């Protein structure tokens, strides 16, 4: 963690090391959003995390814990009030343009153009990363094939099933072969079958493609199954971080639910019912 400098100044761009084994580093992230009146909601309250290169890392926590805000900052969509963050040694606050070249992002909401075909979506995405037309088309076909969308590639996205749309979303995030992939609630709303398929796909990304994956989820079992390492986020802070088994063994816990109860002081199922206004 030493390579991210500056605890409090958001624009501290200096000395973010590239030799570190971390693909993602965030230190002391603070983010507030205006709420009713003059008060501000503290969506992030000094969040710090570090993700090892080539691993699958899960951010878990109830709605409003700060997962999405963290992803927004790490993917250059928002700037923190305080703190520093780097992707592959690139300071995301000082050099968002460079950071965008190495990250792929699959948002919570699809983002695919419903009025275009799957293939057109992928080709445009390639163009936006600077691929010439021929290469963009080749890459689109390659990804359609990989995600079993070749037949559907010529159809409008609005005709896709939920599972197909999610696969296209992941394909869109991979067009430029990113080194770090962000998946914001990749399986929310999917049927069990599509969910299992998505799990296989995510595992394959880390092992086959050597992509570092950061995913957010509010399913503890998903994090337990997929992630080599996870961070439990509560009220804008990381309350526990480490390998799922180590976290459980340390406490002699049977499940991550018990780990959550220990660190957050309440049951996960209770926490998920609490809806906080923490950013959009």
């Amino acid at each position, binding site marked *: 963690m030493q390579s991210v400098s500056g605890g409090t100044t958001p624009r501290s761009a200096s000395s973010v090391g590239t030799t570190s084994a971390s693909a993602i580093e965030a230190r002391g992230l603070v983010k507030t959003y205006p709420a009713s009146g003059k008060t501000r909601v503290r969506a992030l309250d000094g969040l710090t995390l570090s993700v090892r290169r080539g691993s699958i890392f899960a951010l878990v926590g109830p709605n409003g814990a700060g997962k999405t805000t963290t992803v*927004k900052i790490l*993917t*250059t*969509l*928002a*700037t923190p009030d305080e703190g520093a963050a780097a992707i592959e040694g690139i300071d995301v606050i000082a050099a968002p*343009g460079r950071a*965008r*070249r190495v*990250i792929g*992002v699959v*948002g*919570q*909401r*699809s*983002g*695919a*153009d*419903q*009025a*275009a075909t799957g293939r*057109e979506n992928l080709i*445009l*995405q390639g*163009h*936006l*990363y*600077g*691929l*010439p037309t021929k*290469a963009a088309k*080749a*890459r689109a076909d*390659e990804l359609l094939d990989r995600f079993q969308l070749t037949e559907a590639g010529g159809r409008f996205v609005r005709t896709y099933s939920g599972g197909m749309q999610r696969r296209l979303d992941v394909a*869109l995030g991979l067009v*430029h*072969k990113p080194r770090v992939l962000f998946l914001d609630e990749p399986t929310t709303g999917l049927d069990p079958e599509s969910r299992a398929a998505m799990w296989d796909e995510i595992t394959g990304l880390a092992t086959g*493609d050597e992509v570092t994956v950061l995913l957010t989820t509010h399913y503890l079992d998903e994090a337990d199954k997929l992630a080599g390492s996870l961070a439990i986020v509560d009220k804008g802070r990381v309350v526990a971080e480490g390998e799922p088994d180590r976290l459980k063994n340390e406490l002699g816990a049977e499940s991550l639910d018990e780990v959550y109860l220990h660190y957050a002081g309440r049951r996960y199922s209770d926490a998920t019912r609490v809806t906080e206004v923490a950013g959009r």
Partner: protein
Amino acid sequence: MTAIDYPARTPLAPASGVLSDTWYLTGRKLRALARQPMVLAMGVIQPVIWLFLFGEMFHKIIDIPGFGFQGSYLAYLIPGIVAMNAMSGNMWAGMAMIEEIDRGTLNRFLVTPASRLAIMNASVVEQAVSTTIQTLIIVLLGYAGGARYPGGALGIVILVIASVEVGVLWGALSNMTGMLVQVREAIIGVYTFFMLPLMFLSSAFIQPGFLPGWMQAIASRNPLNWEVQIGRSALSADPDWAAIALRAGGLLALAVIAVAISVTTFRKYARNV
């Protein structure tokens, strides 16, 4: 991993990025437009109803001594109806913007290295293209209804340019409202509120000489009225080129300012989604 050559876009050459990104993002919008041509046609319907209803209802107005217009009242109405369409058609731009925010499409573009300016450019070009097509539809329908254009092809080109200026101005304002409030109803409210007063405080329906003094004073400062006057003069047998150039320049300046403000709003929005 297969080897695909990924050309690095250096910060030293941002211009090529803006242009190519504008090209590809505009292509996306125009493809959607071409697939649903009915959307464009539906948009013209209401202005065209005004054209024919007003044209018929008040066709004798042209005979009032001092009206001073060579041609039918239908022909007189054309520039105003074109302005009305340019306004009503593009006030929905902000709704499309909200739609793309809600769907996550905008965020998907914002996490790529795509030029922010290009994202807004695509919207402006789309507005220009759809306004051009709709203006030509109105001109053709007017012709079918008996309106004649002594100004010829050049006059029609000038009318199209003026309508595009109004469309881009209005579209930029709508986009800005969309990003700022992100509430669809607000856009509908604001723009329908302004539409009719701006139409009636102009020479769209009647020669400015017949308007009361206070209305004339407002009309001369009403950008919508500039478009009407540009179009009417350009379509006439004897255009006043100096006045056309002045008003077209004024409209262009306003459109540029509106686009600049909407781009600034967008950049601010994109820094903290």
